[in-house]
């Protein structure tokens, strides 16, 4: 790592990416799966009530996507700031 301001900028960019991902993480599980489950259950996709689907299926799929999205964004960020390995 070269220079403290660059390090601080890298960390800041990491934190904001993380925040976006964690907001989505929170919304699909806690908001759609728990807090708003009743209103969402009024909507049905196939035999699934939507709130029920988010809590037992949808949130899990989105978690997987989130991790790979974060990992690939971070790989790019590592290169951009020249802190990647080898």
């Amino acid at each position: 790592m070269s220079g403290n301001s660059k390090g601080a900028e890298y960390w800041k960019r990491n934190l904001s990416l993380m925040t976006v991902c964690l907001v989505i993480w929170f919304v699909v599980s806690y908001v759609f799966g728990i807090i708003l489950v009743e209103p969402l259950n009024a909507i049905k996709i196939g035999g699934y009530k939507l709130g029920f689907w988010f809590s037992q299926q949808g949130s899990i799929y989105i978690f997987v996507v989130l991790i790979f999205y974060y990992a690939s964004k971070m790989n790019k960020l590592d290169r951009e700031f020249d802190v990647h390995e080898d």
Partner: protein
Amino acid sequence: MDLKTLTFIVVGATFALYIAIAIYSRAKSTGDFYVAGKGIHPVANGMATAADWMSAASFISMAGLIAFLGYGGSVFLMGWTGGYVLLAMLLAPYLRKFGKFTVPEFIGERYYSQSARIVAVICLIVASITYVIGQMKGIGVAFSRFMEVDFTHGLMVGMTIVFIYAVLGGMKGITYTQIAQYCVLIFAYTIPAIFISLQLTGNPIPQLGLGSTMADGSGVYLLDKLDLIVTDLGFREYSTSSNGNMLNMFLYTLSLMIGTAGLPHVIIRFFTVPKVRDARASAGWALVFIAILYTTAPAVGAMARLNLINTIQTGPIGSPTGNVLISELPDWMGRWQATGLLGWEDKNGDGRIQFYDEAGLGDKAAAYGWAGNEMTKVDRDIMVLANPEIAGLPNWVVALVAAGGIAAALSTAAGLLLAISSAISHDLLKGVFMKDISEKNELMAGRIAMAGAIVVAGYLGLNPPGFAAQVVALAFGLAASSIFPALMMGIFDKRANSSGAVAGMLTGLGSTLLYIFWFKGWFFIPGTEMAANTADNWIMGISPEAFGAVGAILNFVVAYAVSHNTAPPPEHIQHLVEDIRVPRGSGQASAH
């Protein structure tokens, strides 16, 4: 060939495979023993992490709990998957960069304090032993069923096998063994689910089958049919029945998520990947392999519930001939009765079995001529293992599920025992009390610690403080309240110091343990609880399983307050924190 012989052959064959791998790649040095060399590919590591992670709680217990909780079972599904998002973003890459063997080592160095390290070891041991108790319940269920003995004897056989198994291999054996175990357990879990989904809905993909219409031509959605039949029998509606109040659901899920990111045997896996970027990807791959089981589980749960009800309620509800005759009960019920985990009693003397919710059905039961729920014992932990039998699937499927359940329980028990043994031999003895201990004695001490942990967990597993998944949930709460906040603050708050971390961990662990023991008995010894474990007694309806999230919040608050009111950490620690935040310069991966 009869079922018992077939089960022995399938279980025996899978066992021979694991043991062969374990012996073939026996641990040769202490470094190998703990983290298998730091040279394992992310996909392989992800698969091994998934096997390590998915224990008796996920495989044997969870779908059974979902079957009876319905929507309320979602806390396990979201909680035990969402934690990987936290792990991938908040912990794994930084701990890999730090590049040591164990979680207490990180805490000891980051907080430049032996007492912080010792407190971390205590937290780790408390959480891991609780976790192993849950595994023992699952192991007992699996062994008692396939040997057709009662639960106690099944548990004892299981303990012996876990002991031999865990002492034989180190992590190196375990990493490759666990890849084999993952393949066995995921095959064993999905095959019956596919068959059952086909039978009930005509759709071979269980995740879609759960949202499909019944194959009986009625055009009714499976979930709607299930909702209707359970409410007619007085149970709560399947797709909406909440697990306590909304606050409890929220905290329960949160507790499992942050517990996932705080459990030492999971974190330790991220020390084994070659690079920091592999640590991020490994968490993703682990979750892919876990999600295959976790998205299947809700289908298994709902379909098992429907099949169980249909087995007993063979005709219209309330009709005198609407229930199954005791003389015509299917074979699987007799086999499970032998384990003591399933029981019935003909209360109204009509020669038939009624299965309903007494409080929910109220006066209607008397009008039907029913004198009480006659399924006097249905242990939730038998549902997954009994599921293929309930659905009338061929014997080889039944045998395969038994093998998968045992693989799941064994792999996790081994991983946890390893975490306990390294905490005691590496962190406590070598790190603190006997710094000049030889490698050989360190390994020996680790194995003695494993044996001790198995005996304690086995003893408490005889009268477990809940179904397997619930006991495991308690372990997650303990990890959530103690280890996760210390790790996270160590990375994200440069100002966090040793007094803050120690005070935080003790507050989190202490408050959570107190709340759990209050309702579950001191040290889980039955009869010593201070108040009945019912929603009325809980603070704001928060169950002991959900309290870990509260403990974690207390931990964060105390650690922050103490850290910011005492001297900041020394300069070199602040540099250490800056250093672990960037990937470059992580140690070279050692060859394996």
